[in-house]
């Protein structure tokens, strides 16, 4: 048997979580360092996974499979394709960053510091499991299990309205999860009626599903994912959760946990229900465009920094969903790359906003003004994070966004045109926020805002480096993503639209 890379990758943070939680409460610093070490080990293991991953290989790699509940056909089965691997890397990159940035966030909380970081590591392990699961039942279990640490992170360590926000988050997710459970059971029933039941993704892909059943089952999955994603009108839990949680939790929630939704759409909606996905695509595309514009307009109207960033994410998730359901290789690869980059850029925004809020003692944008003068490094990094959020070319987010738009344009120019309006709105919400917080004369009540300390700079710097680096050289990651996306779309059996104008005879190779 080959080395169980993925199991190790999942187990390291989970065991780490148990260890950190068990450390004595009187030694908070020890817990912090332990958590950081565990997260860095996870990062190293994930890089090991990357080194083992064969770019030219097909299907799921580093696969492991063991029978779990034989009677039901449930397996412990994991494996990664380029999509899962990209998102696993995003997760393992972000967790150490969040731990460093949130070093002191749990110091004054009711619950122990160790528990805070243990919950983060537990969440990391479970999410990695979701990205790696190749058994539908295992996926479902981990998908729901990941809610538990998230719930306690919000409810245990957040701000004033943490209980309301945590409950709201849980109720939304559980409601979606319930629908998915119904679909999972439905899939099992189908599998059972067509021979030996099996929850393996590979087996379920081969089931013959009637058109009508397929569409109902699709909807169960889709709605669960749309709640997570979050898509308008199922988004209202997010701003509350993001504004009540600690900045680090918000990052894990929005950058990582929400990706389970869009990841699920590619792997399960497109993978299991190709016909239904194509059938639903006009409606989903419409909802995605609505999310883009609606999220952006609401972001413009916010006076709360964290809520504003949360709404920008609603808009960005609209782009991701649009890319997935436009069903072209460009748009879907773009959407996957967008997931990765959105994770980075949103993390930077949430964390820097968190630094600002902590120093100013208020999250209201109207309470800020002129901070640039006394905190130039914070201002510079905040601006770069903001520019990433508005997808400035040269930063990684642009690559994803433009691929989504260009791909969508070949399928539905109308949707692309409306979605592109989002780039103007994005400029407004980011630059208004920057203008109101950072520029203008320094307000007297802002004089206490100090610049970022080295620990905070260390947390943000890698994000900035990655955003710029992948902005100019995105191809290494695209090379990981492309084969997986092609496989998925081949399964949907809908090819990319051909260029509409016949090529000029001499055009071939003329530029080379």
């Amino acid at each position, binding site marked *: 048997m080959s080395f169980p890379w993925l199991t190790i990758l999942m187990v390291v943070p989970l065991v780490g979580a148990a260890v950190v939680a068990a450390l004595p409460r009187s030694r908070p610093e020890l817990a912090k360092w332990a958590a950081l070490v565990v997260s860095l080990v996870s990062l190293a293991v994930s890089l090991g996974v990357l080194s083992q991953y064969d770019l030219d290989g097909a299907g799921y790699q580093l696969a492991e499979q063991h029978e779990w509940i034989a009677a039901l056909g449930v397996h412990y089965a994991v494996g990664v394709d380029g999509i899962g691997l990209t998102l696993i890397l995003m997760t393992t990159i972000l967790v150490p960053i969040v731990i460093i940035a949130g070093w002191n966030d749990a110091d004054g909380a009711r619950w122990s510091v160790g528990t805070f970081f243990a919950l983060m590591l537990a969440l990391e392990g479970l999410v990695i499991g979701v990205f790696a699961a190749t058994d539908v039942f295992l996926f479902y279990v981990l998908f729901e299990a990941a809610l538990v640490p998230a719930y306690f992170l919000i409810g245990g360590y957040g701000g004033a309205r943490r209980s309301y926000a945590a409950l709201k988050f849980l109720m939304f997710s559980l409601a979606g999860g319930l629908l998915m459970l119904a679909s999972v059971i439905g899939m099992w029933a189908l599998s059972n009626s067509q021979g030996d039941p099996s929850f393996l993704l590979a087996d379920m892909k081969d089931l013959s599903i009637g058109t009508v059943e397929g569409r109902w089952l699709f909807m169960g999955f889709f709605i669960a994912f749309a709640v997570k994603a979050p898509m308008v009108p199922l988004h209202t839990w997010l701003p509350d959760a993001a504004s009540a949680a600690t900045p680090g939790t918000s990052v894990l929630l929005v950058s990582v946990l929400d990706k389970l939704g869009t990841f699920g759409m590619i792997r399960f909606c497109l993978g299991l229900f190709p016909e239904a996905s194509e059938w639903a695509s006009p409606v989903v595309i419409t909802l995605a465009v609505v999310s883009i514009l609606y999220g952006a307009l609401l972001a413009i109207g916010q006076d709360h920094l964290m809520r504003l960033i949360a709404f920008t994410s609603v808009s960005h998730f609209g782009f991701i969903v649009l890319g997935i359901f436009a069903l072209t290789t*460009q748009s879907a690869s773009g959407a996957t790359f967008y997931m990765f980059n959105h994770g980075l850029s949103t993390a930077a925004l949430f964390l820097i906003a968190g630094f600002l809020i902590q120093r100013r003692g208020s999250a209201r944008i109207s309470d800020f003004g002129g901070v640039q003068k006394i905190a130039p490094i914070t201002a510079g990094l905040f601006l770069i994070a903001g520019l990433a959020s508005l997808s400035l070319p040269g930063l990684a987010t642009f690559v994803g966004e433009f691929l989504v738009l260009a*791909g969508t344009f070949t399928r539905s120019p109308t949707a692309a045109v409306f979605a*592109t*309006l989002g780039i103007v709105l994005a400029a407004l919400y980011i*630059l*208004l926020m920057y203008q109101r917080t950072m520029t203008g004369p320094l307000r007297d009540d802002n004089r206490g805002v100090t610049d970022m300390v080295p620990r905070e700079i260390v947390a943000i710097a890698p994000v900035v480096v990655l955003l710029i680096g992948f902005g100019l050289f995105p191809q290494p990651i695209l090379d990981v993503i492309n084969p997986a996306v092609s496989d998925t779309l081949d399964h949907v059996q809908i090819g990319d639209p051909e*260029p509409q104008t016949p090529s000029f005879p001499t055009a071939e190779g003329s530029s080379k």
Partner: protein
Amino acid sequence: MTSLSTVVLAASEHADVVPVAADGVFSWLWLVVAIPAVSAAILLIGDGAGDHGPLDRFGHLLGTLAAIASFVVGLVAFIALLGQDVAERAITHDLWTWMQVGGFDVTMSVYYDQLAALFVLLITGVGSLIHVYSIGYMADDPRKRRFFGFLNLFIAAMLVLVLAGDYLVLFLGWEGVGLASYLLIGFWQEKRSAAVAAKKAFVVNRVGDLGLALGIMLMFAQFGTTNIHDVGLNVANASQGVATALGLLLLLGACGKSAQVPLQSWLLDAMEGPTPVSALIHAATMVTAGVYLVVRSAAIYDLSEVARTAVVVVGAVTLLYGAWIGCAKDDIKKALAGSTMSQIGYMMLAAGLGPAGYAFAIFHLITHGFFKANMFLGAGSVMHGMNDDVDMRHYGALRTMMPVTFVTFAMGYLAIIGFPGFSGFFSKDKVIEAAFATNFWAGLAALVGAGVTAFYMTRVMIMTFFGEKRWREGVHPHESPKIMTVPLIVLAALSVGGGALLFSSWIVDWLAPVTGEEHHELPVPPIVITAIIVLVVAAGIALAYVLFGRRAIPDTAPQKVSVFTRAGRADLYGDAVNEALFMRPGQYLTRSLVYVDGSGIDGAVNGTAELVGDGARGLRRLQTGFVRTYAAEIFGGALVLVLALLAVNLA
């Protein structure tokens, strides 16, 4: 407008260009971008490293050297290009694959041809002069190092724009210069007006970017490529509708970047930036990127008369619009900004004429780059001596106090009004001639514009350098240091001699392989048009002299003025229109959506939750804890069950 018969000819000419792979000096062209980019990175990252380090003391020198080094590389490449055979003057160099997904393949490539070569020289040449000037102008600014970092960033991005071999790479430069512009307009960001102006410039430009981005998407959907050369070849097979759509979308982008009506409103506010920025970005280079885009996309415009007409209309409207504003402003920088809009209008108009005008658009773009940079830097020199006052009503009689500034500014002045022999005379004359040869109304607009230009520039000249002293107390005008006046002298020389580019039609022949060439016969001998232009210009000067030279200039702007002046002072109500059409409805929309989201969508969620809660509270009442109640409930339940069974059995 021209008949379509010329169109086919022009398109076939573009097909003749076969790019050759770069070798020798051309394979080092990426350095022109890399040098200022690396310098910018050093200056900006070093920004966080603390104050008063060596970078603070020498950073501005590093930035200036980077710009000059870039110019040297550009100059060497240009000389090498002169030595190339005409058929081998389009050179490509693929650097790396930027992004490739399925059929979407974008290469980071350098495309260096006759057009790009001129731009590289203009950007790095004028850019270097402005860097040198800024050493003096920004000498006392505590954040000087950052300023030079931003300037370097701008140079790098602008060079990406003009050297791009792919529309998406061009877009990278396009947005890069937008970012640099944003950072530099808002350089003094503790001033609220500067911060607001910077944001406005970026957002209005994004509206234009919408057009460029959609245009690139349309190219990919139609041709499966966004390579500029390949798009140019393939567009010949496309339908009229596609060519027109592409032309109009690119025009929208051009309008944003080049401050053309209806996206003009940001440029006047952009004068909040330090004056060298106004000279470099908002006069000589970045704002002309729209013209570059249209000329670079000649293959597309050649195929669509509708798109060309739209370009001409935009140019004609803007050239009059900007000139009108230029007449009414007392702020010297805003008067010059109105003039910039107007002059770019000329270039647009010329570009819209097709192969008959492309070369003249670029010719005027270059001479304008010289004389407008010259005048902006001159204005900066004046402000430097006047304690940063920009109100021309507080100037007067400065010619003796600032002789070098005066003489160099005068050279720019004579060039822009088109005084015979100066660079602007040749370039504007050609634009007006070409316009008349194609369409009478376009020609007339350009002719009238020339008269108005002479009027407002004479007004600026008189109010600043002639007449009575109207200086405020405590202001002691003085000439600027050498580091500032030397660039002025160089630019003044170029303003005078820039017309040499037209010597024996050099620039027209040089650009012909890129833009095609076409000559429309004028109904009258060209000398007649030239004579008329000179007369109109003389009339403009005379009128300005009568109004401003022979009367005293009021110390404060008179309020009882004609509607024309009032409209000009209000930028022809451009902001008012934007506010009424977009800002207020937009604010209303966002506010109502925030309300709907809170009370409608989320209200429904919380409402449902409350309903469930209420229901549960109602049900809870049944659980009283008293045995008698439970007994009654059991009895009730049994009764219902029995009755139900009976009902079923009896039915």
